[in-house]
């Protein structure tokens, strides 16, 4: 086992003691990344740039820097602008784009001395649940079903981030979550993924998909590691007016293992017809663990749950159609080659027709439709009203004294690439059935690995917290983590 398989906490201890150097650690990760091309997890990386950062971290460590991320190699989803580093949101339309500025969260990571290893593959503009809709090749999960070599999805849209952490290519990663894009890939690959409360992390410098739903968040192999990354990236940013202006708590200090007296809600609406028994079983197991550790389990109702997906598929495409209007072939990225007689509207249409992939075009058109004259009230305003009701469901549960809500993360384990949504895009959308409510209500949510199913594939449990309640959520998650003791790793085939 190489250094790249260490957890962040383990590596940080060794770095601070001087037992290993950031350069050695980064080299170990680079070797793994070099050998991982079959996974398509990384979309871009550069040895020299990584080693330069590692060297700087070693200098900081030598001077006694003991911040927990100093010298830690992390992967970054291709949605984050990293200065002078190709940033494409996995889209042809951003071909050749090198931002002249840095996203706030990646700047915060750089400030702590972390080593940014490179950019991670994703669904184009974060639209998807399988990381197949990408200008790069689809991400292939490091996991395979028992006795099969069929390529499986690592989930999406942050599939590259999940695969990279699961395959020990890096110690942690950044993703974004608009409808489940951190939690679903985390569940599919047996790692921990956290979507913070809306506003906890600045969105500045992150390529926008649906601005009222997007949040950046961490992937790592343990709950504690996720807390350490969150501590670094959270905080108010004057450049994002929706970011939360409050002192960032030390999230890792909430992880005490003491959850006595916590009230955990179990929403009956999340029990779906035809849900696999194994999903039901991990849910039961999660309840038992929390109960045995001193929490109280209560049944709750979130009556508007079934309307969350249709609500999401009005609001997210509407915001996307507006956000993606900026890709015009003039200011940055790809421009279709047109002759000098072509008028400008045709130039826009050619550029966007050639530059966007099929799923992005579909969503931009849906968004355009629901915002167009005559349909705005019927679709968009109605969806925003239902969104109010979905959020109210959660508020009612919290008013009854519920501290957190336990659900499965996904309705199944990872599916084979190329099998979902080809004929009917809605089938792919259904993957987000347990996660999308959390974005609509702006709440924090985390996925922790629970068990392997009979196919030998990971399943995750989701905990949903109160606004700004990430600390409690991490504490509860670690109780599950400790008790299930999920120590399964994908068998290396790549």
């Amino acid at each position: 086992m190489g250094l790249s398989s260490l957890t962040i906490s383990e590596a940080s201890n060794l770095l601070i003691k001087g037992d290993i150097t950031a350069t050695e650690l980064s080299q170990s990760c680079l070797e793994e990344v070099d050998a991982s091309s079959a996974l398509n997890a990384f979309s871009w990386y550069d040895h020299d740039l990584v080693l330069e950062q590692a060297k700087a971290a070693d200098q900081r460590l030598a001077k006694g820097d003991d911040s927990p991320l100093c010298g830690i190699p992390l992967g970054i989803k291709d949605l984050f602008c990293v200065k002078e580093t190709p940033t494409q949101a996995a889209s042809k339309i951003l071909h050749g784009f090198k931002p002249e500025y840095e996203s706030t969260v990646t700047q915060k990571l750089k400030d702590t001395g972390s080593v940014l290893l490179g950019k991670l593959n994703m669904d184009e503009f974060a639209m998807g649940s399988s990381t197949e809709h990408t200008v790069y090749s689809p991400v292939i999960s490091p996991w395979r079903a028992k006795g099969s070599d069929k390529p499986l999805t690592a989930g999406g849209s942050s599939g590259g981030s999940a695969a990279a952490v699961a395959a020990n290519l890096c110690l942690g990663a950044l993703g974004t979550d608009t409808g489940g894009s951190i939690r679903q890939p985390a569940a599919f690959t047996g790692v921990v993924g956290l979507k913070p409360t809306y506003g906890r992390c600045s969105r500045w410098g992150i390529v926008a998909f649906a601005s009222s739903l997007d949040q950046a968040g961490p992937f790592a192999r343990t709950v504690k590691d996720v807390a350490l990354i969150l501590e670094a990236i959270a905080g108010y940013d004057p450049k994002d007016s929706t970011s939360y202006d409050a002192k960032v708590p030390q999230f890792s200090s909430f992880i005490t293992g003491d959850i006595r007296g916590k009230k955990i809600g179990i929403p009956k609406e999340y029990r779906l017809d035809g849900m696999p028994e194994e999903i039901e079983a991990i849910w039961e197991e999660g309840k038992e663990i929390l109960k045995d550790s001193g929490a109280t389990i209560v049944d709750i109702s979130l009556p508007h749950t079934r309307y969350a997906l249709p609500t999401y598929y009005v609001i997210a495409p509407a915001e996307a159609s507006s956000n993606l209007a900026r890709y015009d072939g003039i200011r940055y990225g790809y421009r279709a080659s047109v002759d000098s007689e072509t008028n400008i509207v045709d130039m826009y249409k050619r550029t966007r027709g050639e530059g966007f992939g099929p799923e992005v075009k579909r969503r931009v058109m849906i968004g355009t439709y629901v915002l167009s004259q005559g349909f705005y009230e019927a679709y968009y305003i109605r969806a925003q009203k239902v969104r109010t009701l979905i959020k109210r469901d959660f508020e009612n549960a919290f008013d009854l004294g519920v501290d957190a809500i336990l659900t499965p993360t996904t309705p199944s384990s990872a599916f084979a690439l190329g099998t979902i949504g080809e004929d009917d895009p809605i089938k792919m959308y259904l993957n987000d059935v347990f996660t999308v409510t959390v974005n609509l209500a702006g709440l924090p949510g985390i996925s922790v690995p629970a068990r392997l199913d009979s196919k030998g594939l990971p399943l995750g449990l989701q905990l949903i917290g109160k606004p700004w309640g990430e600390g409690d959520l991490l504490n509860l998650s670690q109780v599950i983590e400790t008790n299930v003791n999920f120590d399964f790793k994908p068998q290396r085939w790549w």
Partner: protein
Amino acid sequence: MGLSLDEARKVAHLARIHVEEDELPAIAKELSGILDFMGQLNEVDITGIVPMTSVTPMKLKLRQDVVSTGGDKEVVLSNAPLSEQGFFAVPKVVE
């Protein structure tokens, strides 16, 4: 609710996305399917409900109306597919 070919053509134009004529039937069908799916929202009683405008109860901050950045012409143009003499270059707009 089904989307006609004319409506599909119109929405593609409004979205400024070039679509070939022979792609329109498939697009109309897909979009219709998604709109049907959204139709479930018509079951919900939304009488007296206020549409959400901000998911977290926060007041937007005001800031001083002062210049914070600017004067970075080279930087702004550095990613342009085509620029000339310090301007973005676009196809002829005025006939």
